[in-house]
């Protein structure tokens, strides 16, 4: 029985990446002074899984490198060695190194990383250097390769291995262990099939076999123990030195020298064998995606865990990955979806099918009497559709922790290079966000965090001088607010230097000398294109990607970014994003015979009779006095050059909307229905149109344009002035 292992490579790579992520985040959590044994165990388990997997799949360079890492980890785990920040750094570098090795294997390139040798050497030096404590604590503790263990000079080991019946169910495949043993030396395997029940009584997922293995290899017993490490508690395992058991090899069936140890029992019931083999391979394919041992705390199966990954098969379908033998290096993006979400979806599709057959039956023999029933059916159908749509959207939603997870490392590395002490706090990591939005928000977020690190947080000396704690804090916070997702980057650094910003802006001609700006407006200047504070450029931030790019990227996602800052106390960057890019709650509006859609979320209120609140401005933009604010009025008909019903402004209707951090009132003829619309791109076949963010198709099949508030403001040439807190004087606008 030979299984083409390459079909599982992709799964192994993905799992290894996950394992590396686990290692990385655990390493970053490691405090050198107070070592949490569970954290070390977590790192160890992840490393061990990678080592085991890479050994199984024949990536020996990864396996041997990981082995050295694991050995050192094991010494730390056993308390033989103390962990220092240098060790943590070394481990972090080795995580990077392993990741690169696996990436190269993944890409099918020959693996050649000079750094690996160098790192391996430094690990080995560290191992040889001094394990201060005595090494004979437990059997596990003397696993170190460089250490001369007290192995007697016997030739090998005889192993009797009788796993419990459900060994396969726990994901431990004896075949894999044997293969690992075989990597130590030549192996003879004899299967004991005496426990096999009659075929009628057989449980295909149970393992009825026991094996006697003879390993000709000059290795310490600990190496053999290690192979069986995961099953030692659930099996009958006897390991005896071979020499003590001299003549017992006569029933040994020599293994075929190939890479697959014989596992078929020498039973002549071929059907039984086939059944077993099939069960075994089935087991293998079923377990492989989760071949991390069940004990591993990281492999929380079937949770609502979702993973964006470069090439990840859905967890329920390992076969899909298997069929993908051709490893195209195109970014096949896929997501790992919680089983509950898929179940929901299946339930809903079931309901939809029921409704459909009900309606179908009704249609075959329709009389006017069954009209109420038809209407009821249609009502049900629309509910099904809505629920289905929500579930499908939910599949695309991922917790934002996938984006946040890259920041601990970033902050760790950067704060070190900059000589600053920075603590990163994350909150709201479970906030869910559309995958597309998440992919696009990553880079702007990195830029903002770098910016806070570099310009926000001061050096420890400066902080002490300013009477602040030496360690600065950056908080990443995400939460939902009124149908938007809000991400905040909060630092307790120096805050924006308003005087300097204003000075720079005047130099760059963004602001003329006489302008009076509010604090918010000054802060907002950093997002303007052409605003560069060249003297601040470092290699961390300010590398040509300005805040204006951040704002532009976020605006492209129909989001907004703003900054609040108090000098000396820190800054808060707030990003607001729509939950999804594909569907929008829209308010249909009418101007003349044109129907447009306003995003419902941007609408503040609508005002029917506003005669008394109107302030005509000659040669400028008319204003609406709304309580204590003056709001500029945009006449949609005039900026779009279309006919409107209202001959005079007073006949229309004003919709007050908010966009691009300001309020405007849009003059329209009428409000129509509210509905969810699917956003279609205009640019796909045409081009970007000013004031329009996209198009959609209405129920009657016609195309309707979705208005873009920020674009309308620009198109109307409304200046960004704040008309706030006018002291009730009607003469203001005259």
């Amino acid at each position: 029985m030979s299984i083409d292992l390459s079909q599982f490579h992709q799964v192994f790579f993905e799992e290894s990446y996950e394992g590396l992520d686990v290692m990385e985040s655990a390493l970053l959590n490691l405090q050198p002074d107070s070592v949490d044994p569970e954290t070390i165990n977590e790192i160890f388990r992840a490393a061990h899984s990678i080592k085991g997997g890479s050994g199984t799949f024949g990536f020996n360079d990864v396996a041997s490198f990981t082995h050295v890492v694991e050995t050192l980890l094991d010494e730390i785990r056993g308390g033989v060695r103390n962990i220092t920040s240098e060790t943590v750094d070394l481990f972090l570098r080795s995580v990077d190194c392993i990741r690169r090795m696996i990436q190269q294997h993944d890409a099918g390139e020959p693996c050649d990383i000079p750094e690996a040798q160098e790192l391996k050497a430094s690990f080995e030096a560290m191992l040889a250097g001094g394990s201060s404590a005595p090494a004979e604590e437990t059997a596990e503790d003397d696993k170190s390769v460089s250490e001369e263990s007290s192995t007697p000079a016997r030739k090998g080991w005889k192993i009797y291995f009788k796993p419990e019946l459900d060994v396969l169910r726990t994901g431990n495949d004896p075949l894999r262990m044997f293969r690992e043993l075989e990597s130590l030396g030549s192996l003879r395997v004899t299967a004991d099939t005496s426990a096999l029940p009659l075929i009628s009584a057989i449980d295909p997922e149970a393992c009825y076999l026991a094996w006697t293995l003879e390993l000709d290899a000059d290795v310490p017993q600990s190496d053999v123990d290690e192979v069986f490490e995961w099953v030692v508690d659930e099996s009958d395992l006897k390991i005896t030195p071979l020499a003590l058991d001299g003549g017992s090899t006569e029933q040994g069936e020599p293994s075929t020298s190939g890479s697959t140890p014989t596992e078929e029992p020498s039973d002549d019931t071929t059907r039984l064998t086939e059944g077993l083999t099939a069960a075994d391979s089935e087991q293998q394919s079923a377990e492989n995606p989760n071949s991390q041992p069940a004990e591993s705390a990281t492999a929380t199966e079937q949770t609502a865990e979702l993973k964006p990954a470069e090439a990840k098969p859905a967890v329920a379908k390992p076969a899909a990955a298997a069929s993908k033998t051709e490893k195209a290096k195109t970014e096949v993006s896929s997501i790992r979806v919680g089983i509950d979400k898929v179940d929901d979806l299946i339930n809903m599709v079931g309901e939809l099918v029921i409704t459909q057959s009900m309606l179908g039956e009704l249609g075959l023999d329709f009389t006017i009497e069954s009209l109420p029933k038809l209407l009821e059916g249609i009502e049900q159908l629309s509910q099904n559709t809505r629920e289905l749509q929500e579930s499908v959207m939910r599949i695309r939603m991922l917790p934002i922790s996938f984006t946040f997870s890259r920041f601990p490392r970033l902050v760790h590395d950067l704060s070190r290079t900059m000589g600053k002490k920075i603590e990163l706090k994350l909150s709201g990591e479970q906030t869910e966000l559309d995958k597309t939005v998440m992919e696009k928000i990553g880079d702007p977020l990195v830029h903002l965090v770098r910016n806070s690190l570099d310009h926000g947080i001061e050096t420890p000396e400066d902080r002490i001088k300013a009477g602040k704690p030496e360690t600065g804090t950056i908080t990443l916070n995400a939460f939902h607010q009124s149908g938007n997702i809000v991400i905040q980057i909060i630092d307790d650094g120096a805050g924006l230097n308003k005087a300097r910003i204003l000075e720079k802006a005047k130099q760059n001609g963004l602001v003329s000398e006489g302008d009076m700006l509010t604090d918010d407006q000054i802060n907002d200047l950093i997002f303007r294109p052409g605003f560069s504070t060249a003297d601040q450029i470092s290699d961390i931030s300010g590398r040509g990607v300005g805040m204006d790019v951040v704002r532009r990227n976020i605006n492209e996602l129909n989001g907004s970014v703003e900054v609040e800052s108090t000098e000396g106390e820190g800054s808060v960057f707030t990003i607001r994003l729509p939950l999804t890019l594909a569907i929008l709650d829209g308010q249909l509006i009418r101007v003349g015979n044109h129907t447009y859609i306003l995003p419902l979320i941007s609408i503040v209120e609508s005002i029917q009779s506003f005669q008394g609140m109107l302030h005509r401005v000659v040669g400028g933009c008319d204003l609406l006095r709304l309580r204590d604010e003056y709001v500029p009025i945009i006449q949609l008909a005039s900026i779009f050059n279309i006919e409107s019903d209202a001959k005079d402004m007073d006949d229309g209707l004003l919709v007050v909307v908010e966009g691009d951090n300001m309020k405007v009132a849009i003059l329209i003829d009428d409000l129509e229905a509210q509905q969810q619309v699917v956003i279609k791109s205009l640019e796909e076949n045409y081009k970007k149109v000013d004031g329009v963010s996209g198009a959609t198709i209405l129920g009657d099949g016609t195309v309707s344009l979705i208005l873009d508030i920020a674009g309308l403001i620009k198109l109307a040439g409304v200046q960004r002035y704040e008309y706030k807190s006018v002291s009730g004087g009607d003469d203001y606008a005259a």
Partner: protein
Amino acid sequence: MAEQQNDNATITSINEEISDAIAHEPTEQYLTFFIDNEEYGVDILSVQEIRGWEPATEIPNAPVYLKGVINLRGTVVPITDLRLRFGINQFEYSPVTVVIVVKVKAGKSEKIMGIVVDAVSDVSNFTQADIHPAPELADNKNTAFIKGLGSSDNKMVILLDINKLLNAPEDVDLTDISRALVK
């Protein structure tokens, strides 16, 4: 010797025939249509479908020749009126007014666009020999949008380079594109 010469002559003539065949082989098919009694053609491989005129949703501040966008089975497709694009006064749209939906290459991607014409005429085959280069008129850049003039059965068809034509910036003046040629 004489025989060999003979052979050589045969080979030469065969080669000529082959190269002739190669040169003539690609006959290109063009969908031809009328605008203002002038017959135009577009490469049939770029034509996706032909459909009747239906009202389109206007795009604000778009050029006058852009009639708007329509819903083509879920895709938003812009419609250009070629008459207006060529600066000819607009015809009353009638049931025979047709929209030719074409696929246009734009960089690496493809765009789907519609063009309004007076009437569809025929599918014509032209070999390379039938296609004459458009006359170079010093003051007329518009010939860039014309592949050539195809002639067959005593008629002349203006073969449009639809990729260039529909990707042309809006401010390129295409008026009188036909008159420049006919003269």
